């Protein structure tokens, strides 16, 4: 049954969506991916470049022929790219001047006999130009399915419930929020969080989870739902890191390749999101009659994701240099009114502010943080409207609560209350303390000490990367003393070890920043202090 699911997926996958799975399968075979991109002008026929376990530089040109055969007429347009792939040196740091020693034309369909003949002719002409015989080879549907079988499927959980969850994901229309609660058990079971793993087994399971992620995203990839794809690949990365840390396995040796490959996928998806958003005059999606409830949360999330894209790119290089200007134009200079839909919006807000501080440093940015903290404190003390929902509720649930009578749906907040306590006020105050805004903090202090400050601390750091920790975490409520010395508060705010965050996630602050934007309840005081140090202080222009 699972085999049929994978066949169905491969037979209808676009070149873009199976490329990510292909990279995961390469890393599962010990390859080191040095380049994986989706159609930049500089790729010169090389979709993927990897170093094989025996040190060879290998180039791959991926083509999508879902449910079909590569015919001679298709090959005419590919020939030039294949020649470039086989003959042009790569321009990748560390590999400058090297020409791939092996090249592959990869298709998720079959290849016509006549095309094989043309490839032989091309190889013969390459031999005449001094290249080794048989330089261009092929990987087709059958081989991809064999890889998926041996590297992925064999380790997928076989319980009926897991199978049902995978089917549920495949049956999604693809234009909705990614159902993380369905994907979570699939990843947990594939990575065997209930048991213990040795390093070799973990590596195999990580590859298997990578294949599963690509398959599970099928409906979302077809709809070009970039945010859903970013969410799933981020989960794959943080769950893989969690599995490594849980089992005490060397991350750099056994897992980092797969996570880096997922990170490349995320980076490309952020680029695609940038292009799509840039083409829109108004960033609406779906039914315009329900946009009043979702437009502002979406605008904030897109701004935050674009800020993450900008921060990642500035930290290395812009794969698509023209995107820098697009991103800077996309992110508004001021957030729209009523953007604060719940405490779940705070990580996106902070990401936005850190971006603004980098591109347009001004004291005004800190004052916006102060205004937001003041408003949130008033709200939590019951002086300003209904208390905002905790970060455990997303924008969709908040809308359901607000319009429950109209919608005739159950109240997602039933049994919960948000007055008098907050998950994010400590982090906002910390930003002001580190900016040395003592007078502003003194003004806010009385209200700040009246509410309980909530933190959820996982029992083990590896659990931080998961969607839910269950009982394996402690809820902490901290009430600050009415009177405190500024120096004491500074000391609390300066701490930034983030001991409850996995080491591999701390080593990649950009990924951590993305993770807390997608899973706002993980933007704990501890994590935000760490992120603030990384993005508000060090990199400030």
């Amino acid at each position, binding site marked *: 049954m699972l085999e049929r699911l994978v066949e169905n997926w491969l037979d209808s996958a676009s070149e873009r969506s199976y490329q990510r799975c292909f990279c995961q399968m390469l890393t599962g075979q010990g390859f080191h991916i040095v380049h994986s991109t989706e159609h930049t002008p500089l790729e010169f026929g090389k979709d993927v470049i990897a170093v094989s376990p025996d040190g060879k530089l290998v180039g791959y040109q991926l083509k999508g022929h879902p449910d079909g055969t590569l015919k001679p007429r298709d090959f005419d347009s590919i020939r030039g790219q294949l020649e470039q792939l086989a003959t042009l040196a790569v321009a990748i740091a560390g590999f400058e001047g090297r020409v791939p020693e092996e090249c592959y034309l990869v298709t998720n369909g079959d290849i016509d006999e006549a095309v094989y003949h043309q490839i032989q002719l091309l190889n013969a002409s390459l031999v005449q130009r001094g290249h080794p015989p048989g330089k261009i080879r092929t990987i087709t549907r059958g081989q991809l399915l064999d890889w998926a079988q041996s590297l992925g499927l064999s380790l997928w959980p076989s319980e009926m419930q897991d199978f049902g969850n995978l089917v549920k994901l495949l049956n999604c229309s693809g234009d909705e929020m990614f159902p993380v609660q369905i994907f979570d058990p699939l990843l947990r079971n594939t990575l065997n969080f209930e048991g213990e793993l040795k390093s070799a087994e973990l590596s195999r399971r990580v590859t298997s989870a990578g294949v599963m992620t690509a398959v599970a995203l099928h409906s979302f990839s077809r709809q070009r739902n970039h945010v859903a794809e970013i969410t799933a690949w981020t989960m794959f990365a943080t769950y893989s890191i969690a599995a490594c840390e849980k089992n005490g396995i060397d991350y750099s040796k056994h897992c980092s390749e797969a996570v880096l490959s997922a990170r490349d996928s995320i980076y490309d998806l952020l680029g695609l999101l940038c292009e799509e958003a840039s083409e829109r005059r108004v960033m609406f999606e779906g039914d315009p009659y329900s946009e009043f409830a979702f437009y502002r949360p979406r605008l904030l999330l897109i701004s935050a994701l674009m800020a993450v894209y900008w921060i990642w790119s500035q930290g290395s290089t812009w794969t698509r240099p023209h995107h820098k200007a697009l991103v800077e134009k996309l992110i508004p200079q001021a957030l729209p009114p009523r953007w604060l839909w719940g405490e779940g919006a705070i990580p996106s807000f902070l990401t936005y502010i850190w971006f603004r501080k980098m591109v347009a440093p001004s004291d005004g940015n800190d004052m916006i943080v102060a205004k937001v903290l003041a408003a949130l404190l008033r709200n939590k003390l019951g002086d300003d409207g209904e208390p905002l929902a905790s970060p455990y509720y997303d924008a969709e649930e908040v809308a359901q609560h607000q319009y429950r009578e109209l919608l005739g749906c159950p109240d997602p907040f039933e049994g919960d209350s948000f007055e008098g306590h907050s998950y994010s006020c400590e982090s906002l105050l910390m930003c002001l303390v580190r900016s040395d805004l003592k007078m502003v903090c003194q003004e806010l202090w009385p209200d700040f000490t009246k509410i309980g400050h909530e933190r959820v601390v996982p029992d083990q750091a590896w659990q931080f990367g998961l969607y839910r920790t269950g009982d394996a975490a402690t809820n902490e409520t901290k009430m600050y003393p009415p009177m405190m*010395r500024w120096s004491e508060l500074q000391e609390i705010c300066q701490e930034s070890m983030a001991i409850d965050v996995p080491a591999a996630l701390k080593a990649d602050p950009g990924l951590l920043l993305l993770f807390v934007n997608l899973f706002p309840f993980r933007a704990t005081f501890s994590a935000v202090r760490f992120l603030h140090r990384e993005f508000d202080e060090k990199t400030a222009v």
Partner: protein
Amino acid sequence: MRVARADQSQSSSAVQLLSSTMEIKFDEIPELTLQKTMAKFDEMILDMVRQQTGFALERIGEEIPDSQSVDAKGKTLDAELMLQVLETLQMEFHSDGQPHQLHVFGGLFTAERQKAIDEQFQNDPDLQIRLDEVIAKKREEWRAREACRKLVG
């Protein structure tokens, strides 16, 4: 769950499993009606509520410091005891100076006794003056506490 209070005191508590059962015997089935079935559900729900309430009160009892406790010593609730309670408790006020509503719970606070106490205060001007004085004192204490909410140094 861990709580770190403003006075620097801390307490931790673990999750406790509460459970209740509902039983329908085979012999009962022929005579069972919707009402009888619902009565069984109600019984189970009440049992859970009792357990949860008992659990919550037990935890509150463990955490309340002696300085905030009054021992009724077997007496029934009257105006004198109520004044003693108000004297002892730390009271909170709204920004307009009105006290937060006092929530009472337990066998001591029957509706009948509360009505009797209201009448005692209404009919005895001395008691009413003492009540006003206690509230005024508590309001001042609250104002002093609020004035201490400062970030200093």
